[in-house]
């Protein structure tokens, strides 16, 4: 009972204080909101817009697929041609294997150059 009475008194006192102190709330000046929003808009305008990031991993796979796809197509065409023109034995000869290795090396070198080029371009873009 005493606790309830104390709570009631406290509540009543709080209500009274709330009423009394409500007059101390200050109203912001008319132009404050305008000042704030203008600063925000100005800062926004000064920040450079970020472009959409390039999907690097997607590009790498695409490049790899097209380059090595071409390489395997060339090799397949060459093997088929050699098989029909010179027979099965020539496919296992050192000259032919050497040619296949040369073609694979040229394409691998092209792949390396294209990756190096992408890396340098990316580095330049960041800086």
């Amino acid at each position, binding site marked *: 009972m005493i606790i309830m009475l104390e709570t009631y008194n406290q509540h009543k006192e709080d209500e*009274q*204080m709330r009423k*009394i102190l409500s007059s*101390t*709330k200050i*109203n912001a000046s008319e132009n404050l909101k305008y*000042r*704030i929003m203008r600063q*925000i808009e100005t800062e*926004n305008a000064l920040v450079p817009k970020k472009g959409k990031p390039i999907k690097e991993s997607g590009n790498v796979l695409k490049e790899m697929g097209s380059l090595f796809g071409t390489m395997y197509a060339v090799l397949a065409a060459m093997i088929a041609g050699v098989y029909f023109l010179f027979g099965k034995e020539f496919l296992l000869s050192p000259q032919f294997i050497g040619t296949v290795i040369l073609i694979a090396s040229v394409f691998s070198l092209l792949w390396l150059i294209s990756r190096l080029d992408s890396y340098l371009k990316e580095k330049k873009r960041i800086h």
Partner: protein
Amino acid sequence: MNENQRVQQVLSGNSSAFAYFVEAYQDMAITIAHGICGNMQDAEDVVQESFVKAYRNLRSFRSDSKFSTWLYRIVYNTAITHSKTQMWIGSRETVVEEASQVADNALEINMDEMERKEIVSEVMQRMPKGDALLLTLYYLEDNPVKEIAKITGLNEPNVKVKLFRARKLFKEMVVSNYGIQITGS
């Protein structure tokens, strides 16, 4: 539309949606800043800086807490930095001493609105800044003790004790300075 949705709107690039927050909280923000800085010019600068800070750091706002609590914490910190005030160290003892001498001879008078406003404002200005701020946060904004603790960086029991003392001091100061107890008209 609730506040979290508005925050998301601002984060998605619609900066003008932030005007809602400025409109809704600028009065309370300026009341807090004025209580700490002591003058209107500095208070306005602090509020402007605080809103801009809030806008810039909106991504760090966690939606599990109230936006107002987060914003008032920024205002509180900015005002303290701006005015180089030490909030919880002050001349409380002398103010209390002066007030206690006359507190017992209180009269209860109903007074008109203007007179009451003037007295209350003056007492709030003369009170230690920390005490006045606690009363402002508790009674003007209906912030629970937990939220006040978050805003001021004090712990909850400390806020309760300080709030109790601030309330007592406020009453004593009204009595000591004006020989009256203020009641609502």
